[in-house]
């Protein structure tokens, strides 16, 4: 994480983008730091691509300003901006060789033939494509094309590199490798990355900070851990990772904990930084991996604030973890995910078994219903 030099390297000020009657981006203000990997995460139609296109100069904002490294870029055509974009489709020129593709941007900037060749060779070396310099894009694999697209951008030493769904077209195995490769290059060159993606796993692993977008607005900005552990809204909690959510009402306070009733039999004590009024209707959320199941009568027993009994309805063995669905009565089903730390040391829990669910006081969040 080379975050630092300039916390306002990119300043997005009150940006609005309308297409006719439709507002794609609604009044976004955001600062992006120099040298960080910033992810715009959101579903389709959330406005993330529109924002990226405005940053790259393809679309002009209807209102507001974008300032990159002290330069107001509003109204400037893309060829004059110190940013480069790696397209989702890679957009490699099909009629040019790999070397010509990579050298294209340098030649347009008036770099001499000799220097272009030298810099292209350097970059080819860096992305390990030297033997493919004279091939056409159609003769390359998906991963190789992706590296050409990257090389074509970084050879220009842009101030900001935008990546539109950079791993979208790659298979799972290649994704992890490519992800590390992208980050390695980012650190070596001290680049600022803006990544647009709909894949939260991709965003979580790559980003220093994530901005989650919905309906043309940024709902929360923060490091991945913060978004996951301290979501500022029900939307974020639900959007990132998997979630148990139960409607309930606040019964009162006890020892600095909020007492919440989910059903006649199920009352939980929750530690939350926010005050909730007695009688308030709330939504209680808990991530499955914060909970733990114990077989009835096992020597190991939960020592958490809340312990809930129930019947196992479903067991899904996933290899690295096991998912359980536990019916705790009152029509409430709780999903629990447990890491399989040891090889089968724990007593096997099967469908129909009676279990106790350990529910720590700090494992849940409350949101206004």
């Amino acid at each position: 994480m080379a975050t630092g030099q300039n916390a306002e390297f990119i300043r997005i000020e009150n940006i609005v983008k309308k297409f006719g009657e439709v507002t794609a981006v609604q009044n976004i203000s955001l600062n992006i730091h120099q040298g960080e990997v910033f992810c715009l995460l959101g579903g389709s139609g959330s406005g993330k691509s529109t924002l990226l296109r405005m940053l790259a100069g393809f679309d002009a904002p209807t209102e507001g300003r974008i300032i990159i490294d002290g330069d107001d870029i509003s109204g400037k055509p893309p060829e004059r901006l110190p940013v480069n974009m790696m397209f989702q489709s890679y957009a490699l020129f099909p009629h040019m060789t790999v070397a010509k593709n990579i050298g294209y941007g340098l030649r347009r900037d008036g770099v001499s033939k000799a220097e272009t060749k030298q810099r292209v060779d350097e970059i080819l070396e860096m992305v390990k494509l030297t033997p493919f310099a004279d091939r056409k894009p159609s003769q390359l694999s998906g991963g190789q094309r992706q590296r050409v697209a990257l090389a074509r951008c970084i050879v220009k030493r842009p101030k900001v590199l935008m990546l539109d769904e950079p791993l979208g077209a790659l298979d799972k195995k290649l994704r992890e490798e490519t992800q590390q490769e992208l980050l390695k290059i980012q650190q070596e060159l001290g680049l600022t990355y803006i990544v647009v993606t709909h894949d939260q796993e991709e965003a979580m692993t790559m980003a220093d900070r994530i901005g989650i977008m919905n309906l043309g607005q940024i709902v929360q900005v923060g490091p991945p851990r913060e978004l996951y552990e301290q979501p500022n809204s029900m939307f974020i909690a639900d959007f990132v990772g998997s979630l148990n959510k139960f409607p309930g009402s606040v019964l009162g306070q006890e020892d600095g904990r909020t007492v919440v009733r989910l059903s006649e039999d199920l009352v939980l004590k929750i530690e939350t930084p926010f005050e909730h009024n007695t009688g308030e209707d709330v939504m209680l959320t808990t991530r499955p991996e914060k909970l733990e199941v114990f077989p009835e009568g096992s020597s190991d027993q939960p020592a958490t604030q809340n312990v809930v009994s129930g019947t196992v309805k479903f067991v899904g063995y996933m290899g690295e973890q096991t998912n359980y669905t536990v019916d705790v009565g009152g029509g409430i089903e709780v999903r629990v995910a447990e890491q399989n730390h040891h090889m089968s040391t724990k007593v096997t829990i099967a469908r129909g078994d009676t279990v106790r669910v350990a529910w720590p006081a700090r494992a849940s969040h409350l949101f206004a219903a």
Partner: protein
Amino acid sequence: MPRILKFSLWAGFAFLYAPILVLIAYSFNASRRGSVWGGFSTHWYGELFRDEQILNAAWISIKVAVYSATGATLLGLLAAVAMVRFGKFRGRTLFSGLMSAPLVMPEVIVGISLLLLFISAEQLIGWPAGRGILTITIAHITFCTAFVLVVLQPRMATMDRSLEEASRDLGAGPVTTFVLVTLPVIAPAIVSGWLLAFILSFDDLVIASFTAGPGSTTLPMLIFSKVKIAVSPDINALATLIILVAALGLVAAMLLTRNRNNQQ
């Protein structure tokens, strides 16, 4: 495939191509009388290349076809850019209709109207002076442009827009982008559009008849005037050659389009 389908397929092919095959066969007929088979001979092909009149007409046709195809391709390209890249400009539907109208316009009417235009233009501004290769070429460009547009427009519409954006992003202006990225990518469609226009112009009889003047008789016009007297065997040979040229052009255009599609 059921027998009945096979039969109807071949019957259909026979209906379409039997006359052409008969014509090709008779071009190798040694007999002077068209209807009697007198053995195999390439005599008439030799005759053909000694006939000044035919060679002259062929040369005029080729010149007109090259000029018209080139002019129509340029205009068609501009029209395609306007249709595909300029979004929903005012009068787009009208423009699109006007561009493709020559596809369905009866040739006789196009011919007459162009003839009237040329005559009145000559009276008003003294140009074009008389009718000849120039007027045929202008006439052919007007209807060939529509066909070129039909070939180019889908190619431009399906072209990955991000290629042009990538070029801009890498520092090229709009014109450089068009020349270095757009044109090479749609080049196969441009070539097949040109070939199509060439064949259409080369084959045209009706419009050329109206817009030609003395000394600018095209090959189809010459053939037509000759067969009005009698079908001579050398015309069969000439027609066979024209069919060959047209077929080669069409196959080339098709191959270019197909290669392009395979690459993507």
